[in-house]
């Protein structure tokens, strides 16, 4: 039953990858900013939650503080880092380097404050229960899958039923036209960063409660988000969701054949295969620019 155990674990991993990657894809798809510091938002949210737990504030307060921290970080990046670069017509590469720099800075600051070693939160939610002979599932797995359903459903509703959501989809089409309509692209961009950064919170909290944290986690999260965005298809949030699950399942199921330390290589083998066979991604469309 090893394959079933790994499939269940893969679904949990995939759920967390999917939401985090959807957040990155939402930001990139709407603003065209390569927000490398998305991984830093994940680390920040996770450590704020960890700090709240250590301070005895409880899970609910910790989740709220983590969400506020992630959203504030995303919006601050847009306003303080990206907006000035874009105002001076800085290139895509300049934005990327600035984002990369902030990501590294956040990783180091978190390391200075909380230390570089692994930290975990002890919770009964991570205690596995035998589902059937040889197959163990922790409540966190169900919480992860529940979170992806709720957050992704809410995101779809938001993008289709609210004016800000429709404006985000419009921004992805044409920032210039947004201005012609009389809307402020900077405000819509801030909404994209707030929402995209909010989507890291379930993954950050569940990682803090489950496998544990270290400050370097942001780079891994970012690589997975990028891989899922490319595999799923840039601009296709549904595709990125599926890709997140594909990568999570592949990473875990590959352990049947290779040692777990090579699981990241499996992720990138999938990425290369998709780039070679379907350059626009599984659900993307090749667009003329």
């Amino acid at each position, binding site marked *: 039953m090893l394959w079933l155990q790994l499939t269940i674990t893969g679904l949990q991993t995939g759920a967390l990858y999917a939401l985090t990657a959807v957040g990155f894809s939402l930001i990139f798809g709407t603003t065209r900013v390569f927000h490398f510091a998305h991984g830093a938002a994940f680390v920040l949210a996770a450590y704020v939650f960890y700090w709240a737990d250590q301070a005895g504030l409880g899970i609910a307060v910790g989740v709220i503080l983590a969400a506020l921290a992630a959203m504030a970080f995303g919006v601050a990046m847009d306003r303080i880092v990206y907006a000035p670069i874009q105002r001076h017509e800085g290139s895509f590469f300049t934005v990327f380097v600035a984002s990369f720099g902030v990501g590294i800075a956040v990783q180091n600051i978190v390391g200075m404050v909380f230390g570089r070693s692994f930290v975990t939160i002890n919770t009964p939610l991570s205690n596995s229960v035998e589902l059937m002979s040889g197959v163990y599932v922790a409540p966190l797995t169900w919480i992860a899958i529940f979170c992806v359903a709720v957050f992704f459903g809410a995101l779809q509703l938001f993008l289709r039923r609210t004016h800000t959501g429709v404006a985000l989809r419009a921004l992805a089409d044409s920032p210039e036209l947004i201005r012609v*309509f009389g809307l402020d692209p900077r405000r819509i961009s801030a909404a994209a960063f707030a929402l995209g950064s909010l989507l890291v919170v379930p993954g950050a909290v569940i990682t803090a409660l489950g496998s544990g944290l270290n400050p370097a986690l942001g780079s891994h999260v970012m690589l997975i988000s990028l891989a899922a965005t490319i595999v799923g298809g840039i601009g296709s949030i549904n595709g990125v969701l599926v890709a997140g699950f594909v990568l999570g399942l592949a990473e875990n199921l590959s352990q049947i054949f290779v040692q777990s330390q090579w699981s990241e290589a499996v992720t990138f083998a999938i990425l290369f295969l998709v780039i070679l066979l379907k350059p626009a991604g599984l659900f993307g469309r090749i667009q003329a620019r």
Partner: protein
Amino acid sequence: MSLRPILQARGLTTGYSEAPVLENLDITLGEGEVLCLIGHNGAGKSTLMKTLFGLHPAWEGVVELDGRPITGADPKALSRAGVAMVPEGRGIFPNLTVDEIFDLGLWAVGVPEGERGPRRDWVLGVLPMIGEFRHRRAGTLSGGQAQMVSIARALLGRPRILLMDEPSIGLAPKLFQDLLAPIRALQLQEGLSILLVEQNVREALKISDRAEVMKSGRMIWQGRPEELSDNRKLMELY
């Protein structure tokens, strides 16, 4: 000109990088008139439209709305002050449905929630053909349908001034006529002021009260449409 100036630019100079596109340009749109702006590609017509609507900064000069300076005002402020623009090309978001584009347009210009339904119905009354495809994704519309949606979106805020940048691009002359006819009727009925940039001179002059010809960022001729039509030298050029 006897009409009260509603939108005016004086000594307008702007451009891209170091190169000026408009140089010390004056233009006045009178209240309730259709002013047709004619010129070859590169004359600066679209740059002028963008500068008047706050999409492009003015280097020098003054833009006034109702006699009050608005130079540097952004499109959001101008939209709420009753100016709307139909941009060059397809002014639609291809991944949104026509209804979503209308919702966004109504929200953008701050039409109160309770007035949005009647306002949408009013626009569908002006351009009734849109009713046949209002649930479709805009990216699937034909050129004429997309242009109709773009104009209808601009009308949603019931603007006093409409800036239209080459609405005939990609449209057959007959289709362009069909598109302009209801807009002219609305303009006459509501006293709308329209600044129309066009390369399809003959069709545009039919609905215009006045025409100006632009060359290399300056106005080189102005007069009544029939005077332009009689000017063989200019008509051959444009």
